[in-house]
């Protein structure tokens, strides 16, 4: 039986500090491995989640380290879903360069380039970034289904 047939869910509340970014990446790597994703896919989702979390730490944590980043990782046979929720408001996080290269805009660009689905939703209690990556097999199936529609 393939390990990728069951559903995996992990939920974590992590202190809002940059030093925890590697821990967040590690959690994603563990779940994604368990779900049967390949090395390249895992690397790409680690970058995407790290960008989302860095954003949350920098702009979604009005009380600094007293705030938390809420991470949910969930996978089924077709895809992995990673949710990064913070405790702030979204309006502050548009690219601000201050005369130096902005990695803010680049971070969001990377998320969209590396994942199959990215959504950013503002809620009363914080902002939620939702990242989805499809398994290669699921992508093939989706393409086949789309062919008659074109």
């Amino acid at each position, binding site marked *: 039986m393939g390990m990728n047939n069951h559903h995996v869910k992990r939920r974590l509340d992590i202190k809002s500090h940059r030093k925890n970014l590697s821990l967040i990446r590690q959690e994603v790597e563990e779940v994604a491995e368990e779900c049967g994703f390949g090395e*390249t896919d895992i690397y790409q989702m680690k970058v995407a989640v790290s960008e989302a979390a860095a954003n949350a730490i920098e702009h979604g944590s009005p009380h600094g380290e007293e705030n938390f980043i809420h991470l949910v990782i969930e996978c089924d046979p077709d895809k992995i879903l990673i949710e990064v929720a913070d405790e702030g408001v979204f309006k502050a996080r548009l690219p601000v360069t201050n005369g130096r290269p902005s990695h803010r805009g680049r971070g969001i660009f990377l998320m969209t380039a590396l994942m199959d689905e990215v959504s950013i939703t503002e809620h009363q209690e914080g902002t939620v970034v939702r990242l989805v990556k499809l398994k290669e097999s699921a992508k093939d199936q989706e393409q086949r289904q789309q062919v008659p529609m074109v």
Partner: protein
Amino acid sequence: MIGWIAILWRGNTEEGEANLEVQVLPGRIPIIDVDGEIDHYVVPELESKIMAFINEGHASVILDFSDVSYIDSAGIALIILSIQRSGPLGGKVGLVVTNENVIKILEIVGITKLAEAFSLYSSVDEALASMTGERPSGNE
């Protein structure tokens, strides 16, 4: 030949780690060797060390990322900042990357197209041969 290797910074996180060593040999382009994971946590420290080094008059540098296993937008910003600092000093940045996943990230953000002030190499030897041929080290 006299040379020296300085360990400028060694940073540890609970899960990750990044180190930075600088190798300067007379008449050669300095090599800044970084290993580990270059993320938003380690970049501020890394950035201040590398910028201080370039500002000391080392216009051209080789950033040896052969042993970098992870890079994100903070690391990309660091590379771009290095290019922006070294360019006006008449220098060039050579970046050595071997990890396929890291190369892919560089390609996605389009950094590999900045050919004027920047080149990507697969080894330090290749970087030294190419950069020394084009432009001697600004650090003599």
